[in-house]
C-alpha cells in the first residue's frame, strides 16, 4: 500500500493509512528519506490519525524514520496519535522518546513554523 507523501513548502507530509504491513513500513522508511534528500526538506510530518493501533514494530519504525531524517538535518513531527492508541502505547512502554509530537496536522505545522521562524 503506497503511503502518499505530499510536499508543503519546505516540509513533507506523509499520511499513514489504517493498516500498514511491516513491508509497507519498511518501504515508507526508505521512501521518506529519499524524498527528504530530493526536495531538501527541512521537516517531515507523519500523520497517523488513521491508525487505530500501534504495535512495537510501527513504533520502532517511526523512531528510526526520525533518526534517519535527522541525519539529513531535518526534523520529524508525529501527529494525530489517538487517545486510545497513546494509552496503549505507554502501557507497552513505547514512548517515541526523542521524537516531536503534536495533536494534529494544524498543530504540527504551527510547531514547525514557530521553530523555523527563529532560524530563518
Amino acid at each position, binding site marked *: 500500500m503506497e503511503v502518499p507523501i505530499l510536499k508543503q513548502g519546505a516540509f513533507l507530509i506523509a499520511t499513514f493509512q489504517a493498516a500498514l504491513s511491516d513491508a509497507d513500513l519498511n518501504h515508507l522508511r526508505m521512501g521518506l528519506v529519499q524524498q527528504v534528500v530530493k526536495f531538501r526538506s527541512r521537516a517531515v510530518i507523519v500523520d497517523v490519525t488513521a491508525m487505530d493501533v500501534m504495535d512495537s514494530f510501527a513504533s520502532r519504525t517511526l523512531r528510526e524514520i526520525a533518526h534517519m531524517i535527522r541525519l539529513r538535518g531535518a526534523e520529524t513531527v*508525529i501527529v494525530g*496519535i489517538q*487517545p*486510545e492508541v497513546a*494509552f496503549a*502505547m505507554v502501557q507497552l512502554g513505547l514512548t*517515541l522518546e526523542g521524537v516531536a509530537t503534536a*495533536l494534529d496536522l494544524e498543530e504540527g505545522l504551527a510547531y514547525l513554523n514557530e521553530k523555523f521562524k527563529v532560524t530563518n
Partner: protein
Amino acid sequence: MAKRDGTTADNELKRTEQPSELLRELVAHLRQNRTQLREEWVVRISETRLLTAMTKEEIFAEATSVYDSYVEALETEAFEALQAYARNLSERIIPRGVETHEVVGIVLLLRDVLARSLFAKYQNDFKKLNRILDAYEPAANRIANTVAVGFVQERERVIRQQQEAIRELSTPVLQVRERLLILPIIGVIDPQRARQLTEQLLRGIRTNRAKVVVIDITGVAAMDVTVANHLVQTVEASRLLGATVIVTGLSPEIAQTLVTIGVDLGKMNTVGDLQGGIEQAERLLGYKVATLAEPR
C-alpha cells in the same frame, strides 16, 4: 442438605419413625405454639438488648416473619429461599443500623427458645427427645448459618456499591484558558480510577486541543507505586498528543514514592503548587497577566 440417615437412632429403636416424620412432628409443635414462642423470643431479644435501633412494633413485625420463615425452612429444607429471605431482611434492616452480631444473636436466641420448648415437650421421653433433637439440630444449625451468611452477603453488596460510587465520582477536566486544561485530583486513587482519569484526560486534550495540562494532586494524600506509574504514563501519553503536563501539589510522601520508583524526573515537569503551575503554563502558552488599574 441435612440428612437423617437413621444411624443416630439407638439400636433399640422400637418405633419406626422416619426422620421426616419427626421433623413434621416438631414443625407442627412449633406452629401450634407460635404465638407463645414468638412472644418468648421477643422478650429474650429485648432482655439481651439486641435490635435497639428498632421500635417494639418493628421488632414484632420482623420477628413474626423471621419465625415463620424459620419454621418453614425446617419443614421444607428450602435453604435458597431462606437465604433470599435473609438478604431481603438485611436490605431492610442494615440502613436502620442493625449490626451483624445482632442478627446472629437473635437467630441463635430463636434457636434456643425453640429447642427449650422441645425439651419441655419431650422431657419425659428421653429417647424420643434425642431423636427429635437429631432431626432439629442440623436443620437449626443450617438455618443460623444461612441467615448469618445472607446478612453478611448483603453488607458486602452495599460496600461494593459504595466503592463503585466513590470510583465514579468523576474528576472534571477543566479548561481555564485557551489550550490550558486543569485536572484537580482529590481523594484516593486506585489503579482503576487512575486509568479512568487518564482516558478522560486524553479525550479532553483532543477535544479542547490543549497544549498544556496542569494535574494537581494536592488533594491526594498518598499513592502507591502502581498509581505513581500510572501518573508517569499519563504524562507520557499526553506528550504523544502534543500536550505538556505540569504536575503540582506533590506531598512529601508522594515525592518520596516517585524518587523510590526511580521516575526519570527529567520527564516530569513539576511545580510546587497549583498557582505556580498555572503561572508556568501561562508562560509556556505565551500569556502574560497584567494589572489594568489599581484595585479600589
